[in-house]
């Protein structure tokens, strides 16, 4: 089974990086999260509820919807904060990309460790621009807002193609498909990593950050 890959590109000002990334990541995770599963005796399960809330951006004329999970929000903000710092410290052109990868774990027999098989990867390529005047910044606010609107529409269109999704797991298998570590929401297993690139696309500083430890498949 192939992993499908989607790439989104945005050009933002330095202070908009965080909000733009959070908007995209939250929108994707909104579609890829469910409530917590509560398994019952007969092999059936019920799904808990998850709320949604709107988030207004301060530096962009944009509002996005995210799941009402503070834990998930904190986790994303942490990674996006690191990405933003890496971008800032890299100097250069301010090019980077952040990847959100959904994967499945496959148990292997000993001595081989578990495999992580990605089934969907979302990559957001970021280009940071520096603006001089207040007027330019105002225009940038609106433009980036419109761009993000388009990205959300793109994301929604991809999501609703109903392509491969992992099967709903049994109770013993649930950790291979879903991230059950959060208290109030259950997204599919995911990891976020980012890279700072230079203009040629080669990675100058490769910074990989794994939220859930994975192991190399042999």
């Amino acid at each position, binding site marked *: 089974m192939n992993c499908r890959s989607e790439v989104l590109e945005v050009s933002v000002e330095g202070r908009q990086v965080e909000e733009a990334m959070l908007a995209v990541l939250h929108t994707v995770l*909104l579609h890829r999260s469910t409530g917590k599963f509560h398994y019952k005796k007969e092999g059936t399960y019920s799904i808990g509820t998850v709320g949604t809330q709107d988030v207004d951006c301060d530096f962009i004329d944009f509002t996005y*919807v995210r799941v009402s999970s503070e834990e998930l929000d904190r986790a994303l903000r942490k990674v996006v904060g690191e990405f933003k710092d890496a971008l800032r410290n890299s100097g250069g052109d301010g090019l980077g990309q952040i990847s959100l990868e959904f994967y499945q774990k496959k148990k292997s027999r000993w001595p081989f460790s578990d495999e992580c098989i990605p089934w969907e990867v979302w990559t957001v390529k970021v280009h940071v621009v520096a603006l001089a005047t207040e007027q330019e910044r105002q225009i940038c606010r609106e433009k980036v807002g419109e761009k993000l609107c388009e990205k*959300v529409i793109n994301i929604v269109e991809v999501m609703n193609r109903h392509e491969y999704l992992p099967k709903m797991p049994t109770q013993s298998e649930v950790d291979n498909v879903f991230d059950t570590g959060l208290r109030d929401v259950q997204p599919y297993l995911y990891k976020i990593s980012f890279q700072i690139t230079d203009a040629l696309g080669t990675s100058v500083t490769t910074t990989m950050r794994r939220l859930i430890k994975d192991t190399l498949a042999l």
Partner: protein
Amino acid sequence: MCVEISLKTSEGDSMELEIWCLEMNEKCDKEIKVSYTVYNRLSLLLKSLLAITRVTPAYRLSRKQGHEYVILYRIYFGEVQLNGLGEGFQTVRVGTVGTPVGTITLSCAYRINLAFMSTRQFERTPPIMGIIIDHFVDRPYPSSSPMHPCNYRTAGEDTGVTYPSVEDSQEVCTTSFSTSPPSQLMVPGKEGGVPPAPNQPAHGAQADQERLATYTPSDGAHCAATPSSSEDTETVSNSSEGRASPHDVLETIFVRKVGAFVNKPINQVTLTSLDIPFAMFAPKNLELEDADPMVNPPDSPQTESPLQGSLHSNGSSGGSSGNTHDDFVMIDFKPAFSKDDILPMDLGTFYREFQNPPQLSSLSIDIGAQSMAEDLDSLPEKLAVHEKNVREFDAFVETLQ
């Protein structure tokens, strides 16, 4: 089933903004069973609906509705009518779900061309500061004037979900622009209590006031937490209530705030219910009002200002200079263009207070002359010292370059 979102101005013009269309056709997908797959896809569709509703141009308009226009909805069945959306409208196919009984498709067509409204409606930009527009009208309680709300030009925040009535807007203004403790405005009637925790039904105008009354930057998220459909249902009632409330002049018990940095209870100056900055400086022989509930304010504001000490000393010197003028007969001073009064008004009071400021010490002749003489004497010494340090100065200048 179609849901049409439209905008209606206070002048009666209306414009369609969006049409959401939920279709079901007979094309059955035989392979799909009614199992979790169908349910999951439907819930995915619902999430996509939520995401898309925030992305269309109508959303920004709906956040700003209030005085000038409201957003209304209409549900109808049958063929979708896209004529009212103007030219160049865009369509988003939110999603499709195949079920054993048919295929459900959700799509949204939204208007791009908002030009019709822009010439007329959006010329009037909302005011930045609260403005009292009753300058020449005699009002017993200046706080009850229809004040426009203080709109924050900060990004991403609600620029007036609904223009609230007076007291709430004043509350919002005071919390943001003054460091004095918030006034305890008690408004009987349908507005209910202003913070803390008013227990009003979350309905129409009240709900928006409630949100604004507990306004903090983080509430930007909470304010819009209600899904857009309930926002729309609120607007229908809002349009009728929102217009009524600013014009109900409710009785207010205006409690005077103790001004920031004032650390003495304002005993000697019992002014009427009006918040005057530097009230301690105001001359004593203004009209008193016995019914002033704030003659002895319960507690002074707990400010940790480092300026407190210096202001206090200013207060006492100001008070003493005020006393010297008691020998003169005070004629009631009515400055031009100010309100006629039972109450002393800002302009007159201000003028009186600051008519005779104390002399600057450096300008008084004796001290000035002394210091001049001293300066002249010490000049040669100073020059000698500076000449010695010439090299240091040059080095310093070079570092600046």
